[in-house]
């Protein structure tokens, strides 16, 4: 666990007794109920839970895209506001604008902020370099591979240098090998900057490989079922996934996941469809 005094460039995130309901044609859907979570500045937190447990909703609260029905969300002690530059969000899909080149997609946040052209171009170039996309700067999204597109999306989320980075399963559509490379890169980027990272995943091994703390959520309505501290040393090479300690932690996460399911007394199959 990273203690608070080595916070680096991050901001703390405090989620307190949050309720979120969505209106649907078949009535109100309770996504989060009395959900609380504190994330230390500069730490790497991974949230894991069944489909539809409100993981993505939680990230949208922190990104300021959504307001809780009750409870409070604070980023660095202030209410989050979309576009305030304190939070970068990478979505499950790359969400690149199809008629913009890679470099123009990466520079989109700077264009929105009205950054001067010279500075914009310099920073976009650096951001592309950091994720190894310099060679494809002028290509359109449809010409990129899935991995390249996700790299571009990550570069876009990071170009404003946000103290908090939110990852909504951005690597879930990639093949296992590409994904491992990405996880390694992500860890490297994090170790360099020590921003606060909150990620969401379905993969128990990925959660343990990346996180300081794994947050296990209950099925809908989501709340935190368990917090598991991951005491593996850093930097973590990909082989660490095979170590006995990692295996123990993974078993602990799996146990917490199935406990959460049992608590709800609902069949697993019912959760599957409702992402």
């Amino acid at each position: 666990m990273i203690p608070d005094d080595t916070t680096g460039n991050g901001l703390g995130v405090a989620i307190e007794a949050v309720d979120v309901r969505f209106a649907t044609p078949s009535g109100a859907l309770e996504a989060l109920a009395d959900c609380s979570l504190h994330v230390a500045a500069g730490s790497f937190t991974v949230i894991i839970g069944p489909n539809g447990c409100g993981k993505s909703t939680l990230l949208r609260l922190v990104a300021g895209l959504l307001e809780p029905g009750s409870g409070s969300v604070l980023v660095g002690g202030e209410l989050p506001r979309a576009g305030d530059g304190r939070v970068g969000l990478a979505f499950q899909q790359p969400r690149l604008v199809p008629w913009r080149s890679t470099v123009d997609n990466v520079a989109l946040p700077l264009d929105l902020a009205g950054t001067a052209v010279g500075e914009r171009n310099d920073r976009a170039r650096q951001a592309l370099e950091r994720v190894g996309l310099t060679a494809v700067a002028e290509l359109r999204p449809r010409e990129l591979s899935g991995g390249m597109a996700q790299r571009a999306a990550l570069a876009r989320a990071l170009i404003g240098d946000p103290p908090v980075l939110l990852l909504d399963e951005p690597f879930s559509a990639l093949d296992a090998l590409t994904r491992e490379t990405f996880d390694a890169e992500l860890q490297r980027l994090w170790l360099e900057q020590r921003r606060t990272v909150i990620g969401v995943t379905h993969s128990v091994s990925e959660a343990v490989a990346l996180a300081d703390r794994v947050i296990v959520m209950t099925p809908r309505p989501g709340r935190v079922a368990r917090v598991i501290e991951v005491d593996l040393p850093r930097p973590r090479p990909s082989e660490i996934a095979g170590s006995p300690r990692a295996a123990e932690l993974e078993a602990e996460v799996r146990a917490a996941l199935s406990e959460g399911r049992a608590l709800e007394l609902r069949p697993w199959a019912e959760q599957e469809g409702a992402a």
Partner: protein
Amino acid sequence: MTRIGAALASLAVFLAVWKAATLIGGYPEYVLPAPEVVGERAIRAIASGVLWEHGAVTLLEIVLGFAAGATTAVVTGIALGKSVLIERVLSPYIVAAQAVPVLALAPLLDIWFGGGLLARVVICALIVFFPIAIATMVGIRSTDPLLDEMLRSLGATTPQRTRLLEIPSALPVIFGGLRVGVTLAVVGAVVSEWAGAGTGLGVLINIANQGLFDTPLMFVALAALAIIGLVFYGLVVFVERRLVSQ
């Protein structure tokens, strides 16, 4: 090259069928003149300056009417697409206005707008308006909600979202409406002239048809309108190719 070849071949077939119809039917010239008769009449109409005198007026009406109609339609379409309230309030009037034949209203509009060029432009713009406004509304609504959420997460303002996402994603559909609209601008110009103008290709059609019984001249005017329509349509397609990438 093959495209030009295909166009010329289809023109040749069209003229051949036309010529064959006049030969087989043996119609008098005032019912269906042969292509070469119309061609010869066209040369005389150009030489005497009568075609240009009327054509120039109609061209101006088309350009101004299309510009005015398309601009208002795109602005209205954006508003309709972005606000359900505006759509609820405005769309019944827009649809009702579209259902009323402009041809019937044209004489009144002519009086209201002074009977000059302004009246011509207003009538033409009215006819152009509907398909472009509807296309724009549909286009704006077809914006990818995932991209919109991405832009909101970056703090994009409403004008920024419209400019950077909604209009570019609506553009292919808007151009669909502009293609329909530009051909309707030709029809609109003629309808507006029939409401009481002194010059224009629509007026020339009436003079040739009902005054002079000069059917070949009427065909010359019709051909001129067709060519104007083709050229403007081609211009819209040209601009579309430059603006709509992918």
